[in-house]
């Protein structure tokens, strides 16, 4: 390892964020090179300086924040909400059963009648129905002329959109759903549908992105399934190799090695040798060893 390479690694090495192998190489270089050892001592001095930053004493502010938050929360819960509307509806369900059936039928009929009149929108050519406002969020309040106030409100509404898979807008919505942060169920469903359209470059990119970055292993597995038929493509193979080295879920790594072995490709020999050094899972090690032997590459560590 050259001096400038070692110096470049100082910060990540100090945080313990380099691989075990790189750590050993840095340490043996520091033991042998006085100049780099001095530079590292200086770097540690820099870290010490950072650690002497004055930490704020937030206890007084914390008390204020807690009191403010309690007030906000009380205001939120006091405001009429869908919860209270639903609970009133639930109270209606306490009716005697013979009364509930015709009342329910009437309510459904009325709902259908109003829905037909108040949801005439077409969503860019697709059938779309406005169901109900989901929630609103006040962003700012400004007083204007006497007795007037200007309130900026973000409102989120739910629409039901129906269309065929080859429609660009439907595909775009599915691609957006793949990036839906809070709901892995939606991501799994969307990827399950999109994988049949993986011949589109945009869809394939979304699958690669989900496989590389999605925090949910179920979503990553679904994305992997979608990429199966493209396992021979360089970008997909590179992603599979990264997954094999870095994914913390053994199930995902098993699928990745199975796909990589389906296509013989000498460019992944280095990755496979790295896997032999790092992998704890017996099945993956065996598959990797078999593959390296088939490629007539060395199985040993370096």
């Amino acid at each position, binding site marked *: 390892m050259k001096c400038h390479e070692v110096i470049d690694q100082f*910060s990540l090495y100090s945080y313990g964020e380099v691989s075990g192998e790189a750590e050993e190489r840095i340490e043996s270089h520091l033991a042998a090179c006085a100049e780099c050892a001095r530079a590292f001592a200086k770097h540690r001095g820099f870290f010490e300086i*950072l650690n002497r930053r*004055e930490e704020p004493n937030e206890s007084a502010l914390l008390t204020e924040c807690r009191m403010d*938050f309690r007030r906000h*929360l009380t205001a*939120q819960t006091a405001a009429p909400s869908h919860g209270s509307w639903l609970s009133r509806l639930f109270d209606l369900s306490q009716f005697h059963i013979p009364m509930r059936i015709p009342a329910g039928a009437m309510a459904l009929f009325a709902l259908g009648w109003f829905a037909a009149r108040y949801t005439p929108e077409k969503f860019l050519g697709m059938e779309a129905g406005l169901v109900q406002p989901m929630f609103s*969020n006040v962003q700012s309040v400004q007083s204007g002329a006497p007795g007037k106030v200007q309130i900026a409100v973000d409102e989120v509404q739910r629409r039901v959109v129906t269309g065929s898979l080859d429609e660009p807008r439907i595909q775009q919505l599915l691609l957006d759903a793949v990036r839906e942060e809070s709901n892995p169920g939606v991501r799994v469903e969307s990827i399950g549908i999109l994988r049949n359209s993986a011949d589109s470059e945009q869809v394939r990119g979304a699958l690669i992105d989900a496989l590389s970055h999605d925090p949910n292993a179920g979503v990553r597995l679904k994305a992997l399934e979608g990429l199966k038929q493209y396992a021979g493509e360089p970008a997909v193979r590179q992603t599979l190799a990264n997954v094999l080295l870095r994914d913390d879920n053994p199930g995902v790594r098993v699928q990745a090695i199975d796909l990589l072995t389906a296509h013989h490709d000498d460019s992944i020999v280095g990755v496979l040798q790295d896997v032999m050094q790092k992998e704890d899972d017996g099945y993956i090690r065996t598959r990797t060893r078999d593959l390296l032997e088939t490629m007539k590459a060395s199985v040993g560590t370096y």
Partner: protein
Amino acid sequence: MPVAAGTVSAILAAPFEKNAEDRSRASEEAALIRTAQKGDQDAFERLVRTYDQSVLRLAMNLLRSPDEARDVYQEAFLKVYRNLHLFRFDCSFHTWLYRIVTNVCLDHLRRRKVRKEESTVVDTPEGPVDQITRLAEEGPAADPERQTWNRELSEGITTALEGLTPRERTVFELRHYEGLRLRAIGEILGTSEEAAKNCLFRATQKMRSSLETFV
């Protein structure tokens, strides 16, 4: 030195006890979240109290402004309140909460960039003072020499941090001061471990060159 048999068994048992303790804490937290998801206000407040001090400290350190930290606290926990029903336990609650908090902080930092960096250093009759340092020094027993050195260093660090992009600042704060691993930071910021690593590398290089005079 000979070690008593009881000590050995205590040493051997320690990691298991720690794991058991962690597991029990995690299951207690999961129960608390589920109760809060059903609308129990007390459970929600207990959940907030578990994390709010570290959230406020992170916001103070990232934004160096008590007023903005207070806004972040309110905004972040109200978002948690409104969206808690969407939390599905597919990551830790800490990760989920920090994702919300860092997003709110990043929004503040970016807005600040747009209206030109808002310095946390304010003019006072005694000269320019960092608001956060002033907050920390309000204790009666502060030593004047130490105060001066701390002020200079804090101002130096604040200036160095202001030279980072909002994302670099967040990654640096989470790794250096909060001690989170890059993998966890990647999860919080919705990016890869590798991207977080590159960001941290750039941030430390910039910090190092800004603070060269103190080293």
